[in-house]
């Protein structure tokens, strides 16, 4: 291994590292918001919305992330909507991850006993109020560990940006490689930067899982 690869190209690594963090955070926010909307669709007391939510979740979960990314990267430009690789990649990540987050949220909400909703409704709260003040605060606790897991996957999946020239860690690694031609050193440092993010995250998820398991 050649340490000078890291020192000579530290700008590339740093830029990629920051872009990976940026894409992961934007992806998390976007997929969380979209995931909540889809989860609400799936549990709302209105059949057509349920069907729409279910179709979205089942379809997206069973196709590769690369397709959702290519829809934004190649599909939209073919009808005249152009965007950068970073934007296309991040939007693809949002759409893909939102299906998994919606499932996690739905499972969490449905884990709250039905009596809670009935009691809240019969005390005069509206459906929205019951959700906001009674069901969601309890569901959040159940949902946090699987959400952490999804975030961990999101960080790893953000490497897909490299395929659409999104400027992330993996992409910068490709750039470094094309001038060093030293695969082993170049990608060992890329791997190290990923582990710097993912190992603490997976420790945190493990910790949350154990804590939430204890609380009940």
């Amino acid at each position, binding site marked *: 291994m050649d340490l000078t690869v890291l020192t000579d190209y530290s700008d590339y690594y740093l830029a990629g590292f920051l872009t990976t963090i940026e894409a992961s955070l934007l992806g998390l926010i976007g997929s969380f918001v979209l995931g909540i909307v889809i989860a609400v669709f799936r549990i709302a007391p209105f059949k057509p919305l349920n069907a729409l939510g279910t179709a979205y979740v089942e379809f997206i*979960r069973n196709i590769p992330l690369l397709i959702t990314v290519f*829809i934004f990267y190649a599909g939209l430009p073919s009808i005249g909507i152009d965007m950068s690789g970073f934007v296309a990649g991040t939007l693809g990540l949002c759409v893909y991850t939102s299906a998994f987050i919606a499932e996690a949220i739905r499972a969490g909400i449905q884990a709250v006993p039905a009596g809670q909703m009935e009691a809240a409704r019969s005390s005069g709260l509206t459906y929205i109020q019951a959700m906001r003040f009674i069901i969601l605060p309890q569901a959040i606790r159940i949902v946090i560990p699987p959400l952490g897991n999804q975030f961990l996957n999101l960080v*790893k999946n953000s490497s897909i940006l*490299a395929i659409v020239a999104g400027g992330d860690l993996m992409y910068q690694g490709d750039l470094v*490689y094309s001038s060093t031609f030293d*695969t082993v050193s170049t990608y060992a440092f890329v791997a190290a930067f990923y582990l710097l993010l993912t190992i603490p995250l997976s420790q945190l998820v493990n910790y949350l899982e154990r804590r939430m398991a204890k609380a009940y």
Partner: protein
Amino acid sequence: MDFSAFKWDYFTFMLHGFGITLFVAFLSIILAYVLGIFIALLRYARIPVLSKVLAVWVDIVRNLPLLLILFFMYFGLAEMGLDMTPTSAAITGLVLFESALISEIVRSGLTSIPKGQSEAARSSGLTYVQTMRYIVLPQALRRMIPPTVSQFISLLKDTSLAVIIVLPELMHSSQIIYNQNYGITFLVLFTAALMYFAVNYPLSMLARRLEKKLAN
């Protein structure tokens, strides 16, 4: 968008690509399963040093993006003098990555079997290997079926990442077609999505059914 530009030849070309996707995914899941069981058993046996080394190995592999591993298999090993075809690099990378995930499924399956089972087996005179072979593994394997089916679904989706090492799988075929026929990009991507969906959706239903059946 000009849908009439989508020719029957394109469809069969894509089907051929999907055949390669299925072949690589199927071979990889079998090899990853064997390797995963092997890793889990070695970790479960608590062999000094080796079990610890494997634990670190699994944690590192699990926390890296698959894209990085695939890239490394193809370009990294070539640099070390081990030339790989895209197919063998894709299979090696997928097996390496998935075996780490499967070993965790197997390990949690093994630890879910009550200690009394292996103690009873050992005190009836079975050797350690016999105990694992006839008592613990058959029970653990049953519990591992649903998560393994889910793992196959992600593996099938993940095969699409091998597009970066120019494996002639479905996403690669799709790219070739829409790069020549810009107008049908959406149609091509949607057709590819449907192919993945046609295999993955029934599998995900199966996984859910098995899970329910085991829960009873």
